[in-house]
């Protein structure tokens, strides 16, 4: 393992996050709030990180798969630990809650333990939204540039997706890929800010919400989330940008380079859109019986709630706990499914669901025709058996971790719906759940060990489970 390089990368991350404290500092100065809590944390990060970077100059710049797993996992843990500091220095939260809130930020989950959001300072709320935006940035690079090289969960499919030199020369490839995708990401954020501003949101609210939409995170500046603004226009804008954040960024890149056909023929995109259509249709027809939401309001509510859950954003406009149980069941399904691969959303991802479904059909064909030769295909090309195997193991791991987390919540005395939805919400990085953690509730009432378990679930889910779990294998540490 290349320990020096890893330390250098992590120290660099620390310095970077330290510099980003300037954003809340500036906000504090603007709104005349105390800026010292952020400035001290920022200075600490930079002063601690810089010398570490300096002294850990690696002789060897190669990163192997093992280094990749370790450095990515540690990066998210370190960022979460560091990101918790401003909550402490401002005195807003205790240590456990601060860590939970920070993990919910960097994992772009959006579960919150803050009971009165509107009572917090602007600078802290900005930092809270910024953690999600930075987490989303990291996730795009992780899923599209790094994950394929590590070969996790079938994502090696994307190995050939982005132009650039061959896989073993990681750094130039990752850097070039990352720059392109970040540009798209920043572009969406800017466009959404402008749109929300024009729709009447304050500049500050617009900024925080564009940060958390692009990252499919879901932190809001209001206790009532998006519903608090009570504006159909704002909801439509958010619907559009949630959809964009849930689509594979490689497809956005193709759109920008004019390859419309390739985008339109992408079967994952078609599947993703089909899921949205079916789920919103069910919501539209099932919910009004209870709620009295007719016509265009119903359409908007159905779309908003489908997208907020499916793209794992987690904004809320209406209390879907009052919806009929069929609608709630579909919400649970959408929680598991998640958005497209290569997007900022979490969950199983459309690609895995689609390929898993196709692999299932092939298994049936093998039972009927014992000698049949039939590869699972994606985009007209055969998918390697290794990819399919990796997808199956991902499902298995998802179920195991999911049941484990749910069991811990249940152990703390919560009911079945709360336990299951809390576990799925953490693992798929959504935010709200059902039961005691519904759209109008918060996570503050959980005991510490449940919070830590959910933190584990959030980071594991964000890192496609295997990146984190592989560190727990004794074999990983064997030389």
């Amino acid at each position, binding site marked *: 393992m290349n320990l020096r390089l890893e330390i250098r990368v992590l120290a660099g991350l620390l310095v970077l996050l330290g510099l980003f404290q300037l954003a809340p500092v500036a906000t504090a100065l603007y709104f005349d709030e105390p800026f010292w809590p952020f400035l001290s944390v920022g200075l600490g990060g930079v002063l601690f990180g810089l010398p570490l970077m300096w002294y850990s100059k690696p002789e060897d710049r190669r990163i192997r798969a093992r280094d990749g797993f370790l450095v990515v996992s540690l990066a998210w843990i370190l960022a979460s630990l560091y990101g918790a500091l401003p909550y402490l220095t401002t005195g807003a939260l205790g240590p456990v809650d601060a860590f939970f809130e920070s993990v919910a930020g960097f994992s772009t989950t959006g579960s919150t333990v803050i009971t009165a959001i509107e009572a917090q300072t602007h600078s802290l709320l900005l930092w809270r939204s910024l953690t999600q935006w930075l987490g989303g940035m990291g996730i795009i690079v992780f899923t599209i540039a790094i994950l394929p090289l590590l070969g996790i969960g079938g994502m090696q499919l994307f190995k050939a997706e982005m132009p650039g030199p061959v896989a073993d020369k990681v750094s130039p490839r990752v850097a070039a890929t990352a720059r392109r995708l970040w540009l798209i990401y920043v572009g969406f954020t800017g466009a959404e800010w402008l749109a929300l501003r024009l729709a009447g949101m304050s500049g500050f609210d617009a900024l925080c919400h564009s940060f958390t939409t692009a990252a499919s995170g879901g932190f809001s500046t209001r206790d009532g989330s998006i519903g608090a603004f009570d504006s159909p226009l704002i909801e439509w804008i958010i619907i559009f940008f949630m959809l964009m954040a849930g689509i594979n960024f490689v497809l956005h890149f193709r759109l920008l380079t004019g390859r419309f056909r390739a985008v339109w023929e992408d079967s994952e995109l078609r599947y993703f859109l089909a899921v949205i259509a079916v789920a919103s249709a069910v919501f539209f027809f099932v919910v009004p019986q209870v709620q009295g939401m007719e016509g265009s309001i119903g359409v908007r509510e159905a779309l908003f709630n489908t997208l907020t859950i499916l793209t794992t954003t987690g904004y809320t406009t209406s209390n879907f706990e009052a919806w009929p149980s069929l609608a709630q069941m579909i919400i649970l399904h959408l929680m598991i499914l998640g958005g497209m691969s290569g997007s900022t959303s979490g969950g199983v991802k459309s690609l895995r669901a689609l390929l898993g479904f196709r692999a299932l059909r092939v298994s049936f*064909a093998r039972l009927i*025709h*014992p*000698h*049949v*030769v*039939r*590869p699972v*295909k994606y985009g007209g*090309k*055969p998918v390697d058996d290794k990819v399919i195997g990796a997808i199956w193991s991902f499902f298995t791991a998802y179920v195991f971790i999911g049941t484990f987390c749910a069991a811990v919540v249940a152990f703390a005395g919560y009911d079945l719906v709360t336990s299951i939805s809390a576990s799925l919400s953490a693992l798929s990085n959504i935010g709200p759940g059902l039961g005691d953690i519904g759209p109008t509730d918060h996570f503050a009432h959980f005991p510490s060990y449940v919070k830590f378990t959910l933190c584990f679930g959030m980071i594991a889910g964000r890192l496609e489970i295997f990146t984190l779990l592989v560190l727990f294998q004794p074999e990983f540490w064997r030389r």
Partner: protein
Amino acid sequence: MKIIIVGGGLVGATLAEKLSGEGHDITLIEGDAVMARELTDQLDAHVIEGNGATADMLRRAGVESAGLLLGTTNSDDANMVVGVLGTQLFNVPQVVVRLRDPSYSEGFSLLHREHPSEYVCVNPDAAAVDRIFSLLEVPGALDVASFMDNDLVVAGFRIAESSDFAGLQVVHVQLLFAGTPTLVVAIRRADNRWVIPSGQDEIIPGDLVYFAIARTDLDNVLSLLGEEREQRQHIMVAGAGRVGLELAKRLEDVDARVVLVEENPDRARKAAEVLKHSLVICGNVTDQTVLEEEEIERVSTFVAASSDNENNLVAGLLAKRLGASRAFALLDNPALVHLIGDVGIDAVISPRLLAIGLILQHIGGRNVHSYAALLEDEVEIMEVDAVSGSKLTSGELANIGLPRGVIVAAMRRGEKLLVPRGGDRVEPGDRVLIISSTESAAKVSEYVGS
């Protein structure tokens, strides 16, 4: 005309024989010494031993004065070199080469687009796929070829006792389909005798009868024969080589149900990757359990299309015995081809014979659009353009003295498809379908040439 043929295999030798029979001056270049000696004894042609894919050898064969150069060796590469030398270096007016790999011919045509030489690639495998495809279109047919831009099909059927045609005279068929060019063009009696029929010849059960059928009459003829076209054909193809795979692809396009059986796992895998919804089975087609697993008894046509002749024969027979309604086999061995009618395979497709047909049709001066040799090469059908000054256009059909065994079966003037009678004249510019026995075929060229 002076013709140089490179490669004295089945295709080269057969062409040499046919073309020298038509009075051409043939030089054949063959690389194998033993074969070259045998060919010298058999053929009325000048045979040279050596590598024909060299400029030196071609020069020795007199390529500068040749009107036609044929590349018919077993190797695509050698044929390609022959083609390049002939067109680029020696400017032979017409060059015909056999290329099995379609991607080669594509690149080759690009190379020759700007060149004065007429240049033709002939692909036996593609021809075989075309032939199988036409056979599948006409159920019950043992042999099919289409003419006149697909408006006319020539197909051979075995006449069953129950068929409505049994006992009819040839003239009755003509009356049944008066006004369309549907008629009987040839009959092979049970004693293997070929007849180019006159009106009073009777159709006897057991005869192999060749009909020319206007596309619009096809369903009527089929129902009189007791055959029926299926809505969705269920076809099993054995062997995922060039022919098998291409056939499966084309069948997918017409939405047939296809089962493709291939023994080699790698090939099977490749086929499964390329094909969209065919069922690809990895197994041995001569293994009864594999065929039964895939319900061979429900298969309407079994096509043995591997490169192994004997295996195709065995697989076809096994498929028939296990209940397949029809079985076709790809067979290039002439000895086996003649055996076929007796053992129960319904139709035989010989890529090499097809290649010969294609090459003959392309040879200049014949104005030939399509050409087909019927099942055992006893009867030839050709679609030609009548040119002014030719014997064919010199008078009424009854009076121009067509040789015995030659008939003008159909005629296209403008858009209309006509049935020529004795009193009709062929005008220059008409397209004519001529059917003749192989012996008379050489004389036919005297009639169509100007």
